[in-house]
């Protein structure tokens, strides 16, 4: 056990480097995925059949094929056609496309859940199509979609481990190296804790966003709730009709 900790100490700087790569990929991927999710989610929910068909095709394609395959193509096959991108960019691109497709379903579902009366009120006020969406509908859907988006973010954080396929040395790679010098359970225990810490940090941020979003809709709860470990819940049996 003592030697395990010695090995961990020696590996620590590289583990931190690996963690940084993992975080960069997660954050970059998440931002791209969010943009794609919103774009595709809107198209997938639109009345225009061409737009909807396009969105469905893209969603089914990127959701349906696996991330490894997408990485593999972007990194090893595209260069054969003369398109060569650095590994980090490929990683972010693939993560963004893949998780963006998942996110699109979440966005679509949440937009659907906003009451029809809200759309009608925006029409009655002559808001522009963009104004309708951004100023009224999306803020309401946002509160609904956050829990699912948080899930996707955690999935993505852990999904980044796949980038060793494309020459990137992320946290998982470093943990696997540590494993050679230590007991497997020890090394993976360290990995468990580190991934958990990162996921937890991300979750706290998302919880804060959820609390804030709900608060803005007049479904109060203070931000203090977000600092607790548990995700914000309410007691439906105590809650009174608004």
């Amino acid at each position, binding site marked *: 056990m003592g030697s395990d900790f010695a090995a961990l100490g020696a590996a620590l700087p590289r583990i931190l480097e690996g963690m940084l790569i993992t975080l960069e990929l997660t954050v970059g991927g998440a931002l791209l995925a969010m943009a794609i999710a919103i774009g595709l989610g809107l198209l997938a929910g639109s009345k225009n059949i061409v737009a909807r068909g396009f969105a469905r095709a893209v969603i089914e394609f990127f959701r*349906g094929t696996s991330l490894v395959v997408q990485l593999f193509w972007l990194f090893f096959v595209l260069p054969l056609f003369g398109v060569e991108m650095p590994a980090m960019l490929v990683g972010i691109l693939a993560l963004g496309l893949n998780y963006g497709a998942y996110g699109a379903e*979440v966005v679509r579902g949440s937009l659907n859940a906003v009451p029809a009366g809200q759309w009608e009120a925006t029409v009655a006020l002559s808001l522009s199509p963009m104004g309708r969406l951004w100023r009224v509908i999306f803020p309401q859907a946002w509160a609904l979609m956050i829990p699912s988006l948080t899930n996707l973010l955690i999935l993505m954080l852990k999904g980044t481990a796949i980038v060793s396929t494309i020459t990137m040395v992320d946290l998982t790679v470093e943990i696997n190296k540590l494993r050679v010098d230590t007991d497997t359970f020890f090394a993976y225990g360290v990995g*468990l804790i580190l991934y958990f810490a990162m996921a937890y940090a991300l979750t706290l941020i998302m919880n804060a966003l959820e609390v804030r979003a709900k608060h803005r809709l007049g479904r109060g709860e203070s931000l203090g709730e977000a600092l607790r470990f548990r995700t914000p819940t309410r007691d439906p049996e105590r809650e009174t009709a608004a």
Partner: protein
Amino acid sequence: MTGPQWNWSFAWESLPALLAGFFQATLVVTVLGTAIAAVLGLVVAIVRYVAPAPVTAVVTFVMNFIRMTPLIVQLLFAYYLFLQVPPLTIGIVVFGIHYATYMAEVYRAGIEGVPAGQWEAATALSLPKRRTWFAVVIPQALRQTIPSLGNYAIAMFKDTPFLLTIGVVEMVQAGLVFGGNHFSYLEPITLCGVIFLLASYPTSLLIRRLEKRLAFAS
């Protein structure tokens, strides 16, 4: 010139191994895992509402811990903790539990979305707790959770390569082995992608049909 040159006979040759992996591992784990995730996730979500505070705290902690740590590590720990259990069973259960933690979060959002008036009406009718949950709240909460259930079923599909960690060779690994032996991954991996698509698209259709059916009335 080494380019991506598609070799049909090679692709054809790899197919039996891929299909064997698909039916023996990928599909079994995904279908049973999704079932476990859907049910267990609901149980967890409900427990977090109804159980006494200490139980809720423990369940929430365990749930978050599982949700926030890598599947592959959980597979490994379970694999060496339960030496007598066949790997495939471990795979099914671990996948199921892992995704149940995601589903629990989605159910939570769905349950929160059920208007307070519905709870009150159930109370006013003196409906037993169980009936309130199963006849009133859950059917309404499910509606919003269906798209996410579809997402996780498909995500699970594609996490199945992790099963190799516990010695289960599913489709992608079968493809990699085949590709490794012949040193061309293009055909088997592309085929894997096609099979994934062929499997996930109907899943997606099914889910959206379910979504429509659960929409109340028209």
